């Protein structure tokens, strides 16, 4: 098990006021993402517990893309990864970022 943590500065605060959201399931090839609104407005953190080691570079790219596309300021993501591929991870993160903003839509 490897744990990775990434901190970024986001361009703006994530919309909405929901305190927490969860998407996904922990099964093989899938993953669960919990997102909490618990950081200062322009900060963002992603913590990952993954069974597949040596993909830190790829995770870094996935997280940077999340920050760029969704600007999740104030959010902390916790990922429990069941060995999911980057495409699945990226979709889950997009879903989590969207779900916590939903009450404002």
């Amino acid at each position, binding site marked *: 098990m490897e744990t990775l943590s990434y901190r970024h500065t986001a361009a703006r605060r994530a919309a909405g006021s929901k305190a927490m959201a969860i*998407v996904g399931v922990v099964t093989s*090839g899938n993953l669960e993402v919990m997102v909490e609104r618990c950081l200062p407005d322009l900060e963002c953190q992603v913590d990952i517990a993954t069974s597949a080691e040596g993909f830190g570079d*790829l995770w870094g*790219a*996935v997280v940077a*893309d999340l920050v760029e*596309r969704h600007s999740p300021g104030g959010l902390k993501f916790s990922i429990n990864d069941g060995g999911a*591929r*980057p*495409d*699945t991870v*990226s*979709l889950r993160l*997009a*879903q989590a970022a*969207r*779900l916590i903003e*939903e009450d404002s839509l």
Partner: protein
Amino acid sequence: MAEWNKRKLQREARLAAGAKFARGKLVDQAAATALLEAVIRPGDRICLEGDNQKQADFLAACLANASPQTLHDLHVVQSGIVLPEHIDLFEKGIAKRLDYSYSGPQSYALSRVLKSGKIELGAIHTYIELFGRYFVDLTPHVALTVARSADREGNLYMGPNTEDSPVAVEATAFKDGVVIAQVNEVVEKLPRVDVPGDRVDFVVIAPKPFYVEPLFTRDPAKITETQILAAMMAIKGIYAEYGIKRLNHGIGFNTAAIELLLPTYADRLGLKGKIATHWALNPHPTLIPAIESGWVEQIHSFGSEVGMDAYMRARSDIYFTGRDGSMSSNRMYCQVAGLYATDLFIGSTLQIDLNGNSSTVTEDRIAGFGGAPNMGSDAHGRRHPSEPWLKAGREAVDGDQGLKRGRKLIVQIVESFSEKTVPVFVEKLDSLDLTKKFKLELAPVMIYGDDVTHIVSEEGIANLLLCRSAEEREQAIRGIAGFTDVGRARDRKMVEKLRERKVIRWPEDLGINPLNAQRSMLAARSIEDLMHWSGNLYEPPSKFRNW
């Protein structure tokens, strides 16, 4: 004095040699190998069906049991290398040369035997290309075909799995070849005649019903949310955008996802009756919910699918059926239909390079093509217009088109990584290494980049019609290649510009909410669901029953 009927005389000699083992046209099971040894001659071209679904498995086993002293140097010209016996023919030295189309289940064995030098490979064809050569320079001397039943005259009934038989028999019978059929039973009266008896010389009742490979069943339970997201983009960004009514779907989970989103997501978009009404398509069980919801007008099929017989019989408004009520397939006709009469082909692949060339060849595996290169090509002989075809033609040219020409939409739909996190987007196709390794004259490319109009991944759609330079094309592909090395090496500024021009469209550009990419969006989420949708007419093969 010139002789003008040598082949006729040869045929008579073959028939006389075979007659020793026959009563009328009927040959005893036990004498089948002897019949083949008597009728086939060394060096003959033989077609041993060998389709992508039904197999003349008993005749294949009999031929593989023949003595290599008697039968050798055969030239196999058949669409499918599917059974282990097809490989045995080469390992035993009975056959030497091979021209074929598809080798799914034997793709590893085939490359092994090729490496050992026991196969001289002519070429890997697309189906109608090989069938075309049956009438020009690869006419079989002997065709070994397979049917559900025969009558005493040798008339054959194939039922839904007619597939390649009519074309293989026609080419052989009308050029003085010999046609031998394996059947499950001989009956007094056939439900319908798929091949007339005067084209059939010998009939053998096989010890058990012929094998059919269930190739077109995809379990909805295995469809992922990234596949659902890509399918939503294809529906909204391509089907709706161009108004695609006439189409073909390749087999795969990506296209299965599209089929299962028609009655749900596409219905919500108000697209019923506006897209996906007329199909050249194998009988995919995953299309059942769309059919039952009234989306589909009609379907013509290349082959059949295990478990679909009763359903298709009960839906004759949708499927092509014979006077006996059962569905009728024909690979030759349906491939022609898919080439000329559809506006869109969409299918998956294993590798796509920076030009959009796609290949299913990977190291040590030669799977062949089947029909994909034909479905997945623009038909330059097409002369009838349709709005989707004209729109695609307009997009490919700036300003005045001058002479108007349309384009068939050729769409590749993939996830950026395949299983085990192997990237689908690559700088260089494995096919090129394989070409060198096996000294092939031609790199096996399934769909050439210049025919591909769109690539869809979970990241977005790249519209290659709108690209105006090789550089734009490369960046359009990189811009949807996800987190593969190819995707990460994108020029971000150029990708942004391409998004502004709608060359690249991401889900947010299409107004697609990623939260809707959920399995609950699928009209059926299991094989059992499909069965229920069909009113229990669909009878799933046992390997798909898990309840």
